[in-house]
């Protein structure tokens, strides 16, 4: 009897705690979403009238479509480049040993721990010093400095778990290096590569501190949100914020579904 009572109490506490944590994490995002569908210019409780006007205005804004294009372009290029660099780096870390490997590993991963505004400022000073004009390309470079180490870590986890005997077996069975790569190595490392790509895209898409210093005249979504919060607030700010969050969540969902489908195809789901 006592035991059941205690069990019930524990369960109630767990439920309360879970609700609290979920509310803590998601309430700001929900407020943002509510604000975007409120007719009023400023977000206030209770919401008097709901409307999708701001969604329509945001979707039709030329300015916003331009900065979404910039953000997408930067995120896309960063995803491709960082994944290629990280894939090669992860393979080099996991497969080969050379003198100074551990030191090199630490130096490569160090930018992850740099405060991003400091890194952004350093890159800005450097670009100025060597006479490079700031644009989306410089932002790509800045993002790569911070994101590539993260993607390397993500892919390296998969590479460390990969059994190199499988490549030996494929070679022994007559496969060429290219056949080994696309029939054995890549399919088995693909979940790690895919996760790395998603990380790269989302980290670049939502990056503000590095973009603030390095995009120049090419505005991005996070930078625009910040500038409009500082001066010239419009309900398009929470609307674009909500769109951006939903887009990222959608991408995560597609990513997770893709991994699930891959595993199912391989019969491992």
């Amino acid at each position, binding site marked *: 009897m006592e035991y059941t009572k205690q069990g019930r109490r524990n369960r109630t506490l767990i439920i309360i705690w879970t609700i609290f944590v979920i509310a803590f994490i998601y309430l700001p995002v929900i407020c943002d979403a509510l604000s975007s569908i409120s007719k009023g210019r400023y977000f206030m409780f209770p919401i008097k009238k709901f409307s999708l006007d701001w969604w329509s205005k945001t979707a039709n804004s030329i300015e916003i479509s331009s900065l979404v294009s910039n953000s997408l372009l930067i995120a896309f290029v960063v995803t491709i480049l960082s994944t290629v660099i990280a894939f090669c780096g992860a393979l080099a870390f996991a497969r080969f040993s050379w003198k100074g490997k551990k030191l090199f590993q630490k130096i490569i991963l160090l930018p992850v721990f740099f405060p991003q505004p400091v890194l952004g400022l350093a890159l800005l000073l450097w670009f100025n010093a060597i006479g490079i004009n700031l644009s989306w390309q410089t932002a790509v470079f800045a993002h790569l400095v911070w994101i590539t180490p993260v993607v390397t870590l993500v892919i390296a986890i998969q590479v460390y778990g990969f*059994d190199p*005997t*499988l490549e*030996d*077996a*494929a*070679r*022994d*069975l*007559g*496969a*060429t290096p290219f*056949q080994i790569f696309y*029939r*054995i190595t890549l*399919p*088995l490392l693909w979940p790690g590569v895919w996760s790395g790509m998603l990380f790269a895209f989302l980290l670049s898409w939502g990056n503000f501190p590095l973009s603030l210093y390095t995009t120049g005249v090419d505005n991005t979504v996070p930078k625009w949100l910040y500038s409009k919060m500082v001066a010239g607030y419009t309900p398009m700010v929470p609307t674009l914020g909500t769109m951006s969050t939903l887009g990222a969540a959608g991408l995560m969902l597609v990513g997770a579904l893709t991994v699930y489908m891959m595993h199912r195809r*391989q*019969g*491992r789901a």
Partner: protein
Amino acid sequence: MISSKNEVTQNVAEEIKPGQPLLDLVNVCRDFDKVKVIKNVNLVVKKNEFFTLVGPSGSGKTTILKMLAGMDQPTSGDIVLGSKSISTLPPDKRPTCMVFQFLALFPHMTVGQNIEFPMRVKGMRAEDCIAKAQKLLDLVHLPEDYYNKNVMKCSGGERQRVAIARALAYDSEIILFDEPLSAIDAKLRKTLQKELKDLHRRSGKTFIYITHSLEEAMFMSDRVGVLCKGELKQVGTPEEIYAHPVSRFVAEFIGDVNIFPIRVKPTGGWGSTDFPGQLFKVEPHGDDLEGYIIVRPEALKLVKEGTQVDNVIECKVLNQFSLGSRSQFQLACGKKEITLELPRSEVDLNSVGKTIKIGWNAHDAIFVTE
């Protein structure tokens, strides 16, 4: 046969007649960081035979297998296929295929895709690949519907069969086995050993197998090579190696033995430090003045009144173990421990603690110098 880059060496191997030397290892050495791992190994493997290299961990079995497969190269010496040196050829240009210790099945592929892999990478037509894969499934006693089964959902024994079928699909003349049964439970291992032996006969391929299990080597092989610390100590049929080991190491490795150091006494006859004051009859004498005699537990006899044996010693029975149809005794003669094995019918059930006489004939003991 699959048209492949190893066509030249495969043709060389195919031209050799069964029973003729196929692979010849000539003074093969392999050093790792100045440590000699393989020392002057000379070995001939004949076509169509089931040859097993047996030895304890670290004896260099896998290194030799890797050199045969082309995954490693000798530091010196040569590996010759027929009359063609293959020491420097990569794996895909040799008529060999390896079944790895942990099988190395591709986990993202089905059973059928695993078996088809060597055919697909050589560009064989899809329908031919499927037909051959299904024939191989049948050959290794796997049901036809396993073709689409995920290989990771197969049991240990089934995976083993898939790995062998994949190696057979490559259609190489020689199949190398790197202790593939080591991770399988004893009962299934026995079944797979029988199947492997049977498969060897039906496939007509040359099998080179490595294992640390003496029992496995004796059970399956036509000939066995015993390796110790990178040296090939003895090569022969399982019976030869069991009956005529060339050294203490081989004798000890191939089952229970009693070993006594022995030397010619200045006064004549052979004496052993294990049995002071006693003289033994030893065969053959030769010119060696000292060595060891090796007596298998089953070569020892219980000496009763009227039993005629060349050598007799007195021992105390310390322990008695039942082996089913036979019984094993742990005996003590002074400080020397001796193992005796007798048929159940000859056994006195209450012999522990008693003093008994045992003996052996000179021709039942083996004299070795090292």
